[in-house]
């Protein structure tokens, strides 16, 4: 199959998935028990007359299908509704918090891939030794820990007992710094714990996948050929083994995105990091359904988009898939 056909097929698949998610997102919030109007008003003593007026105002007297159509129309014009809690458009609230989350997720992902790949290579190279066994056990234990719990332990050790780092947040708003350097170091101090915690959570899987992938590659015939040609150990690893062994890591980044999103909700909650994850938590506790709905939709679309990109990248990187 040629590249264009492949692209088109993947694009259509991703679009269908997004449509199903939009559909689910709409009906999930409507077929669930409880009248949305009751949630909206929060006043049990409202008169029937006023109830009818609100119902009309929000288009809730229309049929489900018409409601879905209105929802779709609004969605395409970027209208995700108004937050119950903040009384602001959901879109604005969400967009305001994107940078903080992207910063956290981005830094942690890059760090965990670099360190994870490095450790994976070391463990694979020294397989069966004590280093390998200890490393694997630690990865496995980290993998079995609830993310929020690791975050709590990190806060307890580094912010409560030793008080090296702040408890949470992203810096005091309105603080005046003596210099740009002072501002940067202060920001870094706030970022350090959440980022390191996130890296610890993510790293295990990269280590495991890199290790097994490298072990797999080292068994391939072309590795034997390279060795027979007299390629030294260093080049054997860097030029022959690594490029091939890195391929599953690319796929893992995409598959992991759902896991990363789940992680950021927990880490931002524990560290009071002002991003999308914390927004989701506050929306949950306040039962702020429009924010919850909009956030869920945008996060899911972002994940589907990233998966689509990873599919294409993978095909581009691995010539064997093309044939």
């Amino acid at each position, binding site marked *: 199959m040629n590249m264009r056909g492949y692209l088109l097929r993947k694009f259509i698949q991703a679009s269908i*998935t997004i449509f199903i998610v939009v559909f689910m997102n709409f009906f999930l919030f409507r077929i*669930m028990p409880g009248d949305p109007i009751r949630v909206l008003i929060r006043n049990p003593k409202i008169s029937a007359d006023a109830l009818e007026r609100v119902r009309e105002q929000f288009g809730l007297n229309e049929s489900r299908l018409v409601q879905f159509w209105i929802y779709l129309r609004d969605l395409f014009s970027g209208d995700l509704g108004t937050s119950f809690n903040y009384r602001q458009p959901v879109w604005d609230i969400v967009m305001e918090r994107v940078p903080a989350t992207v910063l956290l997720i981005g830094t942690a992902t890059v760090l965990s891939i670099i360190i994870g790949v490095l450790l994976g290579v070391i463990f694979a190279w020294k397989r069966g030794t004590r280093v390998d066994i200890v490393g694997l056990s630690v990865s496995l*234990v980290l993998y079995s*820990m609830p993310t929020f719990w690791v975050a*709590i332990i990190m806060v307890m050790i580094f912010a409560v007992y030793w008080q090296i780092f702040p408890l949470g947040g992203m810096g005091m708003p309105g603080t005046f710094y003596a210099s740009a350097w002072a501002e940067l170091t202060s920001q870094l101090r706030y970022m350090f714990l959440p980022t390191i915690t996130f890296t610890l959570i993510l790293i295990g899987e990269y280590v495991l996948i890199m290790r097994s992938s490298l072990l797999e590659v080292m068994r391939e015939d072309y590795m034997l050929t390279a060795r027979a040609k007299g390629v030294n150990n260093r080049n054997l690893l860097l030029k022959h083994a690594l490029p091939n062994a890195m391929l599953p890591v690319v796929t893992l980044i995409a598959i992991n995105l*759902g896991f990363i999103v789940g992680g950021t909700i927990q880490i931002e*909650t524990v560290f009071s990091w002002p991003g999308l994850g914390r927004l989701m938590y506050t929306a949950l506790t306040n039962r702020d359904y429009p924010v919850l709905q909009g956030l869920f939709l945008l996060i899911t679309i972002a994940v589907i988009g990233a998966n689509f990109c990873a599919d294409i990248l993978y095909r581009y990187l691995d010539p064997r898939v093309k044939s």
Partner: protein
Amino acid sequence: MNSALVKKDTFALWKKNLSSFWSIYRQNSMGLIGMVILLIFALMAILGPYLVDITIMTVDGVTQVIHPPTSEYWLGTDDLGKDILAGVIVGSRVSLMVGLAATAISMVIGTVVGIVSGFYGRVVDALLMRFTDVFLVIPWLPLMLVMAALLGPSLGNIIFVIGITSWAGTARIIRSQTLSVKERPYVERARAIGSGDTHIMFYHILPNVFPLIFANTVLVAAVAILSETTLSFLGMGDPTQVTWGMMLHFAFSMGAVSFGAWWWLLPPGICVVLVVLSFTFIGYALDEVLNPKLRRRDQ
């Protein structure tokens, strides 16, 4: 051949399979450790209410609140003066029950979707797999949180939400196995003598994908227990039930972190980690037993 004889043969076959399974399994130290840990927790869950004097679960005045471990309260007390050790023991029952019930739902959905999809192929397969992909790609925690928030906090809802969101991986694995099983001669033979689709799926395909279901169940159980803890921690649990996740939820929201109350935060978390780890260990061991290719490679 009368049916009693057939039953006896089946039984003997089961016994033989089981003992050969055990002889391989017990050589795996990881699997054995996992099994022992899990048995201890299972005992704790079953005997919990008999081990713990229920009175120490009740409020014990204000002098004993958020108190570090003493000789009387081995793991200290929480903000209401309740004994943490008692909470951890009692909590094991509901935590494990939620995990196992959610796993059961997930396995049933995953197996049915996988077998039906693989067996019928064509349109059915395309539609079901598209649907499965949707569940695979949607970030699981936001989906579970949204559903749990809409359904309201209760144990039943938590079980339902975890079960309904975690079957997709199983469905894919079972489907690919079904694709290979349905081409085998005995399926064709069954069809030739007039067996219906349901009969073939139930009596010929299901038994042959069963080992896979078994190995997968263990891994899904680990995920289900982690999910319960996380959902409860984020406030979606049933506040009237004691689970490890709910204990951590209350500890965190009552400020146990800034009190430095490690005795309140560590024990429930350690229990979760041990249970998840033991399921993972058993999963690895089963993989090795059921997958001879893997076994040979390690030697």
